[in-house]
């Protein structure tokens, strides 16, 4: 096993001791959300400003079924993945032919559309008040209402998601998506149906977002209206960029930084988003590769310092 995986396993074990289990759980949920976005942003070069469409839709649908029909937790997760993928297929279908600013604005506009449906449809979604009462049903005698048990479930699903994403980006599909990011015209000329592959990236990203959405609803027992709003779309984008969109682990680190800052520092200092803004400016101006790049730069410095030391 390589180093990042070992570090992650250690982080999974230690995190609930360091911070409250609910925050630790939220970090990994947000990381799953970020993994889905990064397939679009980092690998395919598509800046989607509407990821909460898939997150929120899945949370509402699965949350509603959990609440009204008491469905099995795993079925709810499966439905969430399906709803995430389906809503992403719809949004992707409308967006993949556009590029640049038009693409970004269209993902945003469709996100707003979904937001207003949730806002208006109060009988189901609760509108501004959110949809409370989402249960965390026990499964095979395991009681997920215990925060640490639920944390364990989310951790396992996060590690599984990361593994699946790792396989995807190391497969030909990962290469093709990166080729589209690098040069869509040539990618088309060598034989790839570029809009189709972009759509596929959307659907996969949407599936990850959907999983995260359902886990989020079950964590807090409520689907807040913000879960489908542009602030959530922006948050996952922020987190991914701060962590580093150029690498597989970027969104994971970004999620850790983002959630930890927002949950821990916000209780000490009400103006905490200022910190986030500063971090974002630093990333955009000096560190396009985010925390991951900072880490590798420090590593390279340290490495060259070590190797330049005379051997005695």
């Amino acid at each position, binding site marked *: 096993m390589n180093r990042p995986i070992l570090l992650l396993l250690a982080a999974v074990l230690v995190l609930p001791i360091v911070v409250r289990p609910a925050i630790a759980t939220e970090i990994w949920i947000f990381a799953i959300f970020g993994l889905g976005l990064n397939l679009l942003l980092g690998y395919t070069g598509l800046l989607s400003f509407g990821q909460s469409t898939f997150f929120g839709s899945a949370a509402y649908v699965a949350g509603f079924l959990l609440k009204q029909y008491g469905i099995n937790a795993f079925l709810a997760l499966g439905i969430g993945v399906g709803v995430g993928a389906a809503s992403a297929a719809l949004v992707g279908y409308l967006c993949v032919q556009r590029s640049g600013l038009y693409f970004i604005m269209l993902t945003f506009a469709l996100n707003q559309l979904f937001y207003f449906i949730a806002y208006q449809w109060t009988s189901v979604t609760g509108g501004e008040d959110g949809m409370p009462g989402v249960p965390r049903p026990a499964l095979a005698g395991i009681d997920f209402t215990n925060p640490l048990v639920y944390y364990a479930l989310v951790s396992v699903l996060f590690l599984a998601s990361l593994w699946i994403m790792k396989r995807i980006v190391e497969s*030909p599909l990962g290469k093709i998506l990166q080729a589209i990011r*690098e040069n869509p015209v040539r990618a088309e000329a*060598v*034989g790839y149906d570029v809009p189709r592959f972009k759509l596929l990236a959307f659907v996969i990203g949407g599936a990850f977002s959907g999983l995260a959405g359902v886990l989020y609803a079950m964590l807090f027992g409520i689907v807040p209206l913000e879960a489908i709003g542009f602030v959530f779309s922006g948050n996952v984008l922020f987190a991914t960029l701060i962590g580093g969109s150029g690498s597989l682990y970027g969104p994971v680190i970004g999620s850790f930084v983002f959630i930890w800052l927002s949950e821990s520092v916000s209780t000490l200092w009400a103006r905490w988003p200022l910190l986030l803004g500063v971090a974002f400016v630093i990333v955009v101006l000096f560190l396009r590769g985010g925390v991951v790049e900072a880490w590798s730069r420090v590593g390279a410095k340290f490495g060259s310092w070590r190797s330049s030391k005379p051997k005695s």
Partner: protein
Amino acid sequence: MAILETQELTKAFGALTAVNGVSLGVEAGTLHSIIGPNGAGKTTLFNLLTGTFPPTSGRILLDGRDITGTPAHRVAHLGLARSYQRTSVFPAFSLLENVWVAAFATGRSWRGLAWRKTERYAEVTARARQALADVGLGGKADAPAREISHGEQRQLELAIALAAAPRVLLLDEPAAGLSPEETRKMVALVRSLKGRYTIVLIEHKMDIIMSVSDRISVMHFGSLIAEGTPAEIQKNPEVRRAYLGGVAA
């Protein structure tokens, strides 16, 4: 028999007819050059052949089969590969990755597309390495494409087209922007590909054209004005007037 054929191919952009009733036949195994002054419609003709955009009228036949209107990504699978006049590679990729994606596209099967590791496609990797070796970049497989010289990027440009294992190779000014020394290398390279592929070549440098071509078609203001062997073209008075001007007289 002609492997690639166009019948009365026309492309109009508004009032401008960039390609005007071009009927062209490329014999299998030959090197067929297309020459003409800037703006004669040569690159537009390539864009039509590779499905970048559909023609206004006329037909394109590959092996006698009508492929008019087939989108670019499908044309690649039919065995038509092109290189670009302005270098168009994947800058962040290594040279091997550049040709690997092209080789995979036209590979035998896409099984394991989203799951199998790229290293496990031995046959695709072998073809990719072969394409790099064919253009003389075999020793630089792991270098990033954005860090190699312009001359090497032109070679890579060609390797990406070769990696698709095409039957017809469309080369759009492979020697564009090269130094005399690099141009000599590129000409030798194109010559080495002759016979292995059917090649359609767009080029400006007359010495290259005359030395490597089997047949030459001359375009002027979107129309074909002459076709023949290099010797015939050199003697053709109309070509001299339109293209060579006073220079070769």
